[in-house]
């Protein structure tokens, strides 16, 4: 028998509008699942049942009156990086473990206006710094496919929530792969839009020139539905781009015959496990059957994307996180002995190990005498990488390759070796450096663990990416797999 949580967002939407169930029933169903399943997964930091039921009741009224927004009554979990007015917003950090945001992030506001019902706030790597969700002050998130494995990060809570069907959709953010990599490791559809497509206002900044909000969904169609209401110009974000938001849903079914797919030569070379590579090749064959053409392309500077990222992102983060000083909000140490002690201990105790490591990395690369050698050079290499992508998109419509070099790894396996951990993002970072939209969609499993196919497009090609992903999902069923015990 099909249960509510087996349905995709689009299917739930149809059911709501056909009055087969109410928004309140939907909220209760998912809240019950959260109560039952979250303790083992640790996917949510905060659950907001009262908030959810009130929103659901409102949505039911609007649905009845015919004035409901496009996403009215649909349950959703927000990554705890987004400020939610009157609700605890921790960013996975002890630093904000007592922080009640006094305002809504733009995307929270927009999605509320569209009628979504927030069920709670998802666990995440502390300040979105991590690739395994092990750096959260609230403890690691478990992968529903195997509780011993990581769900990926930093949007690991969002990923585990949707994978375990605690909600049909979660918001997420991606600075170096934080949507796509956990989506790949939990068998979901993850979309990181073009930099500037979705407002960053109210999303707690990690690396401002790389951060972008997106979606964690079951299908590409669900992602299209949510993005349509999340994206758009925001006068409060100077880096938000003022171009119209297309109807992403309307273009999903365009045929893929003639699609030129670029295969990223560099992605198939280093560190990719053969079992993962095989699944990627099979996915590419599906596209060939749909009439797409495969063209190998080379981005010679792409191998430098990880070192570039680990200069640029920490530099920005070191500055962005200076505001956490124990004065106006957030954690403050006990009995500070003078101003310096207040700063040193509030920050020393309030931030976890990885956040401190990145702040120090960033502080160093910006400091006198090192700026040119590290930061400026990284900014130049960033341009080289971006130019490589631009050249590739003169030849092809989209680029494809793996999302992650391996499926989910064991909790604790990489925590002591930052470089190995950083290399998890080797395939995803390029799109962030160049500001490109990118997705990960499930394309099979290795040893019972999902593998993701990454699709990268030129700036503002979200509609194309969703169309390409949807085409594949019409041919395959990987995206409908639910981990054992969560069906």
């Amino acid at each position: 028998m099909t249960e509510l949580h087996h349905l995709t967002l689009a299917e739930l939407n149809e059911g709501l509008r056909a009055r087969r169930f109410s928004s309140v029933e939907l909220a209760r169903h998912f809240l019950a699942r959260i109560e039952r399943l979250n303790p083992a997964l640790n996917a949510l930091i905060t659950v907001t049942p009262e908030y959810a039921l009130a929103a659901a009741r409102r949505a039911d009224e609007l649905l009845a009156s015919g004035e409901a927004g496009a996403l009215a009554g649909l349950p959703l979990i927000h990554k705890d990086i987004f400020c939610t007015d009157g609700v605890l917003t921790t960013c996975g950090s002890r630093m904000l473990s007592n922080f009640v945001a006094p305002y809504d992030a733009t995307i929270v506001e927009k999605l509320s206006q569209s009628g979504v019902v927030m069920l709670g706030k998802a666990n995440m790597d502390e300040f979105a710094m991590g690739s395994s969700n092990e750096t959260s002050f609230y403890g690691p998130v478990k992968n529903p496919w195997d509780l011993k494995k990581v769900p990926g990060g930093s949007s690991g809570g969002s990923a585990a929530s949707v994978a375990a069907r605690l909600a049909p959709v979660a918001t997420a953010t991606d600075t170096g792969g934080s949507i796509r990599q956990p989506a790949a490791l939990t068998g979901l559809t993850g979309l990181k839009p073009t930099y500037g497509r979705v407002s960053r206002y109210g999303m707690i900044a990690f690396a401002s020139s790389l951060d972008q909000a997106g979606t964690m969904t079951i299908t590409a169609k669900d992602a299209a539905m949510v993005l349509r209401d999340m994206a758009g110009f925001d006068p409060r974000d100077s880096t938000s781009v003022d171009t119209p938001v297309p109807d992403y849903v309307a273009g999903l079914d365009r045929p893929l015959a003639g699609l030129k797919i670029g295969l990223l030569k560099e992605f198939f070379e280093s560190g990719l496990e053969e079992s993962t590579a095989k699944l990627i090749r099979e996915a590419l064959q599906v596209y060939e059957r749909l009439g797409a053409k495969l063209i190998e392309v080379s981005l010679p500077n792409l191998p430098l994307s990880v070192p570039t990222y680990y200069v640029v992102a920490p530099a920005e983060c070191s500055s962005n996180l200076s505001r956490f000083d124990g004065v106006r909000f957030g954690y403050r140490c006990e009995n500070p002995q003078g101003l310096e002690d207040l700063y040193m201990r509030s920050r020393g105790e309030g931030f976890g190990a990885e956040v401190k490591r990145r702040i120090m990395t960033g502080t160093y690369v910006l400091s006198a005498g090192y700026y040119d050698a590290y930061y400026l050079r990284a900014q130049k290499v960033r341009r080289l990488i971006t130019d490589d992508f631009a050249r590739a998109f003169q030849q092809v419509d989209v680029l494809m390759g793996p999302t992650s070099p391996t499926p989910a790894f064991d909790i604790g396996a990489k925590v002591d070796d930052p470089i190995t951990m950083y290399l998890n993002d080797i395939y995803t970072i390029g799109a962030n450096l160049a500001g490109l939209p990118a997705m990960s969609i499930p394309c099979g499993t290795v040893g019972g663990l999902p593998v993701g196919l990454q699709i990268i497009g030129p700036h503002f090609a979200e509609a194309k990416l969703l169309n390409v992903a949807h085409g594949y999902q019409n041919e395959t069923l990987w995206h409908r797999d639910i981990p054992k015990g969560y069906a």
Partner: protein
Amino acid sequence: MSLTDNDVKNIAKLARLKLSDEQLPVYVDSLSKIFDFVAQLNAADTAAVEPMAHPLADQVQRMRPDEVLDTDQHAKYQRNAPRVEADLYLVPKVIE
């Protein structure tokens, strides 16, 4: 590249982060490895390359009209503050 204890202490001081004695060697080791790792960037030929600060090259700063849109919300905003007195944020005495 090998950082010394002192290097890391100085960075931590600049970043206002108190590190415990046990944490220090861990950071000396991991930060040294990170700076070795990012040294790969030296391999790129960047001689004629303009640094890139933003992913969208042709975007320019938008300017807003000079309008006051805010009302006094200090009570709400100060609910998150660890110490407030007379509507001021309190910190240990600043010596100038």
